């Protein structure tokens, strides 16, 4: 920090993104997202044939959940910043809120999962439930599949729909309300501490909504791909990746905004140092959780549990899994140990991009290996016999990723342009601007 930041350095009317400068990129993103969504929906509902419909359903879940973790992570950092009464991050808190505010839009991309045309390829337990037809589902399961009979209280289609609605509505209300509290303060002629205290209070119990959402979306959308498999570490595992990579997105957004001349005076190397330290912490936390999950399953060697790793430690998937150990943990761990690197926005951004690539690999290995196994079982005439992978399905993954990614970037840019880029009338803005750690 070159000098002590005083209130004369703070933009009184706020630091606004010039929307005209990003309109071109926003238009391009909107076109990509729009065209991609149309093609994807046609594909998901069978216009391009059963083969594409089935394989693309998995691509969709992969891309959908990848971007959902980033949005949910934005909500998490907002909640954590409020509830821990933090002063360090007030100048970057708006970026947390903006990232979190993409949640409702990204969540909408999960709507296709509600339709049997899509979820018949993903969630086989639903097919077995639907086989009951007019008869009682419980009776049907009692004869067909005792495991599903026992899991019926949780895994039943009406409850699944109810949970889906809860995830979407719950976290949307949370982030919408908290962001509104924060942005209302920007134009408040008498900005006191009231909004800040309200945000802190309401961030306490809403953390529970967040925890339920990250855990149970993971259970319903990813663990449900194989209804026989379970892991109690699953929610924490997804949370670790979510917190790490949403912080990576926040670092990238802040670096970009600074390069465009925004966030001047209020953010500096100290803020990037803290954000880098959080990335470092969650890199380690991810490894700790990922290993704990693997270790217990590997040691106990129970059939229901090992299926997940048996698929992923077969053939080329195993190369990916071993890569995760070294490239998702060892490399960023060593790199992020350097303090000078974390203080430099440019170098930290390179690490952030790298971490996001590893997150994509992580989520690819979570979702996609299930594809060849499930689809081969559901319809081997179209998809071929049960195999580790389905050749050619990779292009669908790219299509889904680009589509939802473009939509995610569009709503993020839109959110950034709506309000001041930092809470200029927050009582703690000077404390944050003069941060030293």
């Amino acid at each position, binding site marked *: 920090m070159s000098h002590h930041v005083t209130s004369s350095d703070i933009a009184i009317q706020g630091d606004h993104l010039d929307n005209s400068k990003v309109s071109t990129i926003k238009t391009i993103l909107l076109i990509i997202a729009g065209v991609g969504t149309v093609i994807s929906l046609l594909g998901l509902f069978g216009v391009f044939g059963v083969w594409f419909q089935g394989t693309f359903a998995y691509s969709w879940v992969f891309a959908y959940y990848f971007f959902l973790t980033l949005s949910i992570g934005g909500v998490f950092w907002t909640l954590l910043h409020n509830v821990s009464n933090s002063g360090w991050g007030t100048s970057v808190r708006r970026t947390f809120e903006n990232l979190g505010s993409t949640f409702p839009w990204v969540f909408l991309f999960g709507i296709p999962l509600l339709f049997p045309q899509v979820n018949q390829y993903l969630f086989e337990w639903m097919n077995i439930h639907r086989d009951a037809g007019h008869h009682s589902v419980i009776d049907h399961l009692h004869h067909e599949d005792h495991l599903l009979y026992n899991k019926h209280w949780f895994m039943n289609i009406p409850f699944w729909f109810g949970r889906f609605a809860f995830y979407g509505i719950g976290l949307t209300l949370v982030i919408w309300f908290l962001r509104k509290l924060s942005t209302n303060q920007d134009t408040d002629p008498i900005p006191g501490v009231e909004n800040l205290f309200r945000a802190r209070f309401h961030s306490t119990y809403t953390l529970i909504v967040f925890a339920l959402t990250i855990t149970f979306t993971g259970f319903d959308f990813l663990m449900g791909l194989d209804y026989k498999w379970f892991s109690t570490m699953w929610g924490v595992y997804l949370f670790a990746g979510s917190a790490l990579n949403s912080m990576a997105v926040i670092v990238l957004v802040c670096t970009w905004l600074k390069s465009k001349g925004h966030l001047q005076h209020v953010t500096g190397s100290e803020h990037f140092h803290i954000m880098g330290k959080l990335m470092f912490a969650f890199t380690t936390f991810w490894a700790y959780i990922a290993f704990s999950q*693997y270790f217990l399953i590997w040691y106990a060697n129970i059939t229901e549990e090992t299926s997940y790793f048996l698929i992923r430690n077969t053939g080329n998937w195993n190369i990916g899994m071993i890569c995760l150990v070294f490239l998702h943990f060892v490399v960023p761990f060593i790199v992020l140990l350097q303090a000078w690197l974390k203080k430099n926005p440019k170098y930290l951004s390179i690490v952030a991009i790298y971490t996001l690539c590893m997150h994509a690999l992580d989520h690819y290995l979570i979702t996609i290996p299930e594809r060849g196994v499930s689809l081969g079982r559901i319809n081997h005439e179209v998809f071929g016999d049960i195999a580790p992978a389905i050749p050619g399905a990779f292009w669908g993954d790219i299509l889904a990723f680009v589509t939802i990614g473009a939509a995610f970037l569009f709503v993020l840019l839109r959110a950034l342009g709506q309000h001041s880029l930092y809470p200029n009338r927050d009582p703690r803005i000077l404390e944050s601007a003069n941060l030293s750690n």
Partner: protein
Amino acid sequence: MSTTRKRVYGYLAEFKSASALYKAAEKVRDAGFRKWDCYTPYPVHGLDAAMGLKRSILPWFVFFGGITGTATAFTLAYVTQVILYPTVVQAKPTNIFTIPAFFPVMFELTILFSGFTVLFGLLGLMQLPRLNHPLFASKQFHRATDDGFFIAIEARDEKFSPQATRDLLADIGGENIELVEEEQD
């Protein structure tokens, strides 16, 4: 009357507040002194930058200490469990692929060795424990643990001069400037 020889330790000056000390520290740093220190009742943020202190070498000790811990644990587990006395537990292989079973102890020894390197490296770099410090000869110095903010410039610094250093400390706001002498026997 006993004849004790005394050796000049250096000048001790008191400052009014933490911010006065901070600004004075920047001036002492800019004057080019190397062997000097600040004494405050509580940690002052950013004072190490104002004093021109370089980053400690300690993190490197800890890094290599931690690596030593990892390697020690791996060697210990691998040699005993795989080479000397291969132990088949739950049909797990007795080769390098048993490594997940070694991870907990590798993790623990990494932490243990890092912790020890922090503790002993820190004590070593600070030259602790020591029984006495020349500044304890000063009557006012005990206030550094209560409400006093002090700068002490040592006489063994190359830039030290009996008159100019005293003047410098007075110029930058030092009060109660005192020549501290340590007794030698």
